[in-house]
């Protein structure tokens, strides 16, 4: 078993919106829920609540008041209506793989699991759309569409477990999002319910909904605006062919220049990933993917499409890499070789987990041109904080995942890792980037939000939340910090994630 202890911490998340209901209200609430749901769809016993007390960010734990596990949209609506009538917060949950605590319960809340709504309602091969319930796993959509030569493009590395409802709530990305877009680019419509149970239908198969683009607002809204019970997604034809180039460079700067060179050639690779020397060595020792151990950085660039398109693009990618001083170059000549070259990148997190007792994964995005500067800054910070850091990143879209090494059993290490992480996120914002590229804010990055946004923007976010949920009962306290919290904040605090799903590949 790999050990991933993550960052320990003591600070509890704040839940400013909802006051705990009086105990007297609990019994009528539970009675109403019990009347509206099948017997096995309501959990209230402490031992039943355990599995729902956290999501992928497991150092935050809090059992909810009760867990509702509806089988159908009508039951979801009933739960929302009842909770609204009883002034009780509701926390939606998909598969619970979120890394920012978005599905963390509060003691006074009903946790609403959408996991049992897992029907694929319809696949229309001609129109290239699928209509699915929110609990359907991301990978299950592509599996169901495979018979038509189609697939659902966004592929978070948690895709065998995470739900499409969770993807919508987080606007999840994947290795192929440089070419094929994020969740927001691949979802055509959602249906669901507002906090008070009002049914809402946004977007659909017809392009460009009339009125404001509320669909864009729903993407990445972390369960604060509505509970989604149906998602219409766009399907794409599965590319016939794919090949990957692995190029090694003496320095991270050279690799960064090659990334700019590839884009400058007019190529949008299907995937464009980079690892620094520390990550490369950790990976090579672990999976023997064939990465050179003396490289300062390696780049993986994938091309997909028809045979002709791929052959052409691969030749051009190879030429760019040579021009930018690649010290070695390997191109997959078979599907097995392609998977082997990717295996290293996919194993980067567990590989790092083998050489450090704990690590702390960050998720900032920066303009690509600042990559070398930010990596130099991270190296300086690493010296300063006395902790090593391996860098793995989605180089095509500037999404960095620095992995800070520490040992939770060493006194002071946790605090140093947190301080280091905080400085990295600051460096991302200073470089013109953002505090989270794909993992979301949840409860984890509430303080970091205070660094990225000023009071007028934060107030506007609260206003939008209030327009959808005037009573503030849907996933309260997540995603947007109170102005009070930002004012109180002496410095930015960022907490890392304990790995709950070590079986899943990590990018």
């Amino acid at each position, binding site marked *: 078993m790999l050990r991933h202890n993550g960052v320990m911490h003591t600070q509890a998340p704040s839940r400013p919106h909802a006051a705990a209901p009086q105990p007297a209200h609990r019994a009528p609430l539970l009675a109403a829920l019990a009347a509206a749901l099948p017997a096995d769809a309501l959990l209230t016993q402490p031992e039943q609540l355990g599995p729902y007390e956290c999501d992928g960010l497991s150092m935050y734990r809090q059992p909810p008041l009760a867990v509702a596990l509806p089988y159908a949209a009508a039951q979801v609506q009933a739960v929302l209506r009842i909770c609204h009538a009883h002034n009780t917060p509701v926390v939606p949950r998909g598969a619970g793989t979120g890394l920012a605590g978005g599905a963390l319960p509060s003691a006074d809340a009903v946790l609403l699991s959408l996991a049992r709504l897992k029907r694929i309602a319809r696949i229309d091969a*001609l*129109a*290239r*759309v699928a209509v699915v319930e929110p609990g359907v796993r991301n990978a299950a959509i592509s599996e169901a569409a495979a018979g038509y*030569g189609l697939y659902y493009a966004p592929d978070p590395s948690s895709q065998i477990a995470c739900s499409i409802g969770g993807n919508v709530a987080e606007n999840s990305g994947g290795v192929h999002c*440089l070419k094929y*877009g*994020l969740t927001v*680019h691949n979802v055509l419509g959602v249906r669901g319910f*507002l906090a008070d149970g009002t049914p*809402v*239908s946004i977007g*659909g198969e*017809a*392009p460009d909904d*009339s009125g*404001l683009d*509320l669909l*864009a*607002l729903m*993407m*990445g*809204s972390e369960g604060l605006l509505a509970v989604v019970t149906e998602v219409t997604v766009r399907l794409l*034809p599965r590319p016939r062919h794919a090949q990957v180039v692995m190029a090694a460079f003496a320095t991270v700067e050279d690799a960064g220049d090659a*990334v*700019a060179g590839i884009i*400058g050639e*007019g190529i949008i690779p299907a995937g464009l990933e980079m690892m620094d020397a520390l990550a490369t060595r950790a990976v090579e020792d672990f999976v023997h993917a064939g990465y050179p151990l003396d490289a300062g950085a390696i780049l993986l660039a994938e091309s997909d*499409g*028809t*045979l*002709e*398109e791929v*052959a*052409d693009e691969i030749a051009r990618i190879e030429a760019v890499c040579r021009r930018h001083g690649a010290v070695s170059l390997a191109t997959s000549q078979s599907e097995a070789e392609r998977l082997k070259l990717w295996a290293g990148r996919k194993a980067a997190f567990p590989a790092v987990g083998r050489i450090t007792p704990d690590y702390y994964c960050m998720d900032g*995005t920066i*303009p690509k*041109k600042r990559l070398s500067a930010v990596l130099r800054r991270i190296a300086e910070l690493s010296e300063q904080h006395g902790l090593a850091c391996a860098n793995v990143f*989605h180089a095509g879209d*500037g*999404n960095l995942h620095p992995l800070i090494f520490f040992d939770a059993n060493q006194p002071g290490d946790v605090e140093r890792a947190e301080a280091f992480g905080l400085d990295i996120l600051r460096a991302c914002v200073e470089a*013109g*980037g*953002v505090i*989270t590229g*794909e*993992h*979301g*804010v949840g409860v984890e990055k509430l303080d*970091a939000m205070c660094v*990225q*946004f000023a*009071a*007028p*923007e934060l107030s506007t*976010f609260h206003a939008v939340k209030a*327009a*959808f949920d*005037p009573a503030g009962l849907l996933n309260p306290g997540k995603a*947007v910090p109170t102005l009070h919290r930002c004012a109180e904040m002496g410095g930015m605090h960022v907490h890392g994630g304990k790995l709950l799903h070590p079986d899943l590949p990590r990018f």
Partner: protein
Amino acid sequence: MTHYEPEGRTPDPEEARLVDEVRAAGTEGRVLHIRGGSSKDGLGGTPRGSGLSTLGLKGIVDYDPAELVVTVRAGTPLADLQAELAAHGQMLPFEPPAWPDATVGGTVASGLSGPRRAFSGSVRDALLGVRLIDGRGQLLQFGGQVMKNVAGFDLFRLQAGAWGRLGVLLEVSFRVLPRPQSELTRVLQMDADQAIAHMNQLAGTPVPLSAAAWFGGLLHLRLSGSAAGVQAALSGVGGEPLDPLSAERLWADCAAQPPGFAETAAAAESVPLWRLAVPAATRSLAAEGEEAIDWCGGLRWLRTHAPAEAVRALATSLGGHATAWQNNLARPAMHPLDPVRQALHRRLFDTLDPDGVFDSGRFDADAAAVVAPAGA
């Protein structure tokens, strides 16, 4: 009220002037009607209120082709931006209508995309961030200059197609794409229903389609990509080649309205024009009027004398929506919203623009709702 400047930026005098105008309008209870190049004045009804021009906001703020990101001020002529991108072998992915005098701000606010929309996304898909003045006269910044960003609600994407109802756009950032190495257009003779089937079938195979439109009895297909990839795909597509210059003109026209469609007999008789968005594989609407098809079936131009309620009911029954276009006095021009979304709109307007400064009537969500939510 707080007036805040993003750190590290010196206040821009033109932006400061616009802020003052918005605040004064709010205080005095006046309505402002935001204007760029006025190229879309014919759409969506006559706005009320006094004009607020963005033409003082010109220029590209930041453009590094290797980032695939451009940041540009709202009053910049769209043509200037497109020329700059073309000079670096890049383009806006959504192929907006290039009406003379169109500005970048108006392009975002109207949310209008061209033929490439069905394959490389819409205006909002390419939008990465905005700076704007809201109804309270606050200078706000949402999104950024990076592709992956999940911090905060996506209020920048909400600006696309909002017709300025939520604020004055000052500066926008787009994701851009490399111009394809090679583009070829093929023309096939067939009726509308055959064309709808053919284009959708092709789009389900790994062929580098970048446009599919039908009008005047002809299906037009565009392939874009590497020269080798486009050549290899041609055999599966069939049809006759269209010379590159004509093809370029044809697709540029399509972004505004299919070529020839403005000159038909029905057009000459000023039959009202509608723009319907429908699911891509929807049957031909030829029985309801004169039809042209774009966006691989998702966009239907329809010229018909049918009453507005009938066209709207048709669009709703197909799972789509209908916007009144030329020669069309149906109001609201925008497809009416169901009561739930209408209430959400009203609450968003009330909170983001409490004094109704931007309620110029162009964006008619306040019109009476007549359409029940489909299946809700």
